[in-house]
């Protein structure tokens, strides 16, 4: 391909829309939030930039740190379940007959065609104490079980919602996996289990890391799922942030909490970069 310097007009044509979008709809609002996080409220509707750290100091109160820690924990468990479930799914799709692959991938992304809120309501209809699942279990004399309004329900909801984000990068790496490595391992006397842990897993590690990042980050900021599926203890940091921008009407504090969450996210991304640089496997 030619250097972009040789085709300046093409370069700017392709470069401008994306940059414009990023700048106007992402970076500028984000800068506003960043400024807000160092601002004071001066009236009901106004904030003034004062360079104060008070919002961050407040965010380091034990109660918020506890909630952040709990959010990290819930997100980590949800991500782990996603990985455990998605890996076999991605593997299955890769080794399925070629004519089935598009259909199987379509099934993975199909839920995206329905709004998250509607899907969460559907989950409630299935799992509530007089829901469809308990109805079916009732036919064989089991239940009814209380499946909603606890941390387990939140984790289940997150796994359900973010599963495709795990399946797709895993599929991409497994698909590009050179199968002759697997054959070589088996030919040289490695068992199936050894081959999986010593060859397949390391080679697909970049996909695993990408999947973990793609699932963990949105889980960390989620507020709809804990709001609707969680019980009395289900609060996550996303709920606190949402409340600052709504009922509590405290944009500066909400911004400070958002940025704290973003630093956690940066940490996760740095971790990914670290693993990617160490990885000798397939590019991600």
């Amino acid at each position: 391909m030619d250097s972009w310097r040789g085709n300046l007009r093409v370069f700017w044509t392709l470069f401008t829309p994306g940059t414009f979008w990023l700048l106007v709809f992402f970076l500028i609002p984000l800068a506003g939030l960043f400024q807000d996080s160092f601002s004071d409220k001066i009236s009901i509707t106004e904030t003034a930039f004062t360079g104060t750290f008070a919002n961050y100091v407040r965010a380091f109160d034990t109660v918020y740190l506890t909630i952040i820690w709990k959010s990290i924990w819930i997100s980590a468990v949800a991500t782990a379940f996603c990985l455990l479930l998605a890996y076999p799914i991605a593997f299955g799709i890769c080794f399925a007959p070629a004519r089935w692959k598009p259909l199987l991938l379509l099934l993975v992304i199909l839920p995206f065609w329905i709004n998250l809120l509607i899907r969460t309501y559907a989950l409630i209809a299935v799992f509530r104490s007089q829901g469809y699942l308990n109805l079916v279990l009732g036919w064989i004399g089991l239940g009814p079980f209380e499946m909603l309004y606890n941390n387990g329900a939140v984790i289940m909801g997150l796994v359900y919602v973010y599963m495709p984000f795990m399946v797709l990068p895993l599929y991409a790496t497994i698909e590009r996996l050179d199968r002759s490595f697997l054959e070589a391992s088996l030919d040289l006397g490695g068992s199936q289990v050894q081959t999986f842990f010593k060859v397949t897993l390391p080679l697909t590690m970049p996909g695993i890391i990408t999947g973990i990042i793609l699932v963990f980050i949105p889980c960390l900021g989620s507020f709809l799922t804990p709001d609707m599926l969680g019980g009395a203890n289900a609060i996550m940091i996303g709920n606190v942030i949402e409340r600052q921008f709504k009922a509590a009407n405290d944009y500066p504090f909400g911004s400070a909490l958002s940025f704290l969450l973003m630093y956690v996210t940066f940490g996760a991304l740095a971790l990914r970069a670290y693993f990617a640089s160490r990885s000798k496997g397939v590019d991600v």
Partner: protein
Amino acid sequence: MTGYTPKFSRKRRSILQGLGALGLGLTFLPRNSLSEEEKKLNFYNWDTYIGETTLADFEKATGIEVKMDLFADNDELFAKLKAGNPGYDVICPTNDNLERMIKANMVTPLDHAKLPNFKNLDPVFQDAAFDPGRKHSVPYLWGTVGVGFRKSKVEGTVDSWKVLFEDDKYAGRIALLGDAKVVIGSALKYLGQSLNSTDPAMLKKVEELLIAGKKNVKVYADDNGQDLLASGDVDLTMEYNGDILQVMAEDDDISYVVPTEGAEMWQDCLAIPTGAPRPENAHAFINFIMDPEVEAGIAKTVQYGTPNAEAKKLMDKAYLENPAIFPPAEVVAKCEPALYLGEDVTKMRDETWTRVQAA
């Protein structure tokens, strides 16, 4: 921070005003802007909160076409108007939110000379603590926050907040609202205080009460307590009376009561937001709503309490004698509207609520 004076105190509002001025400069004024308002009105209202033919009747009577947008909660209404009025002529905020908007100059005073139907209102609604002299608003509909419950699943009569806050009998079968203001206010009522109490010691007591009672609470419902009650997920829920009324219509086993300790009595009000493009039409619309026939039509459809004494005379017995709409007078006497308590108290209550939820 002490001793630190910012060189550039840039206020969000001033930037927006600048942008607004720019926008005005770019807009060509409509030809008739100096004579008469165009026959249109933008009404920002709650969902399912108007009579079946109200808007069509208004157009028939005045020729003014009403476009109604819907909001889901007061926070949405407030957030939408916070940065400047996007073009609404009439809005329908709840009392404490209205008071906050009055204090932030987000609503304009009414011209009562243009509202002759105001006299139809019940005298108790002709003034309000959150809007003294009704300078900025007229009441639209009112109701209470109480306890919705499944009759076959509770023992004896339910008449106290105790069942939600301190009664282990119903452990795991209770939903509270996921709203700091309402839950804390109701708990204050249970403790014999005003729901507008700003006493930190009292708030601490509320926090302890709520945390101790949390083991019995199944969920803090996001305004869907009535659905949880109808589906059998919970047997008692804190809810707005109108929401419970909806499920009562479909299920005879569900009932609603306002606890004898008193509760929040809310009023949704009509007001004109600052910067409304058509204030004349807005006044005409607000006056039209206070017409007895019109208000009765609305009350018939939405089944909330009307503040309009003349409209009440047109309503049937089933509506007037429904205790879920009009609680007994001695209970009403103990109810009070929530006031806007200032940003500091809002923050204090929000922190209390976070601690309760995280406990």
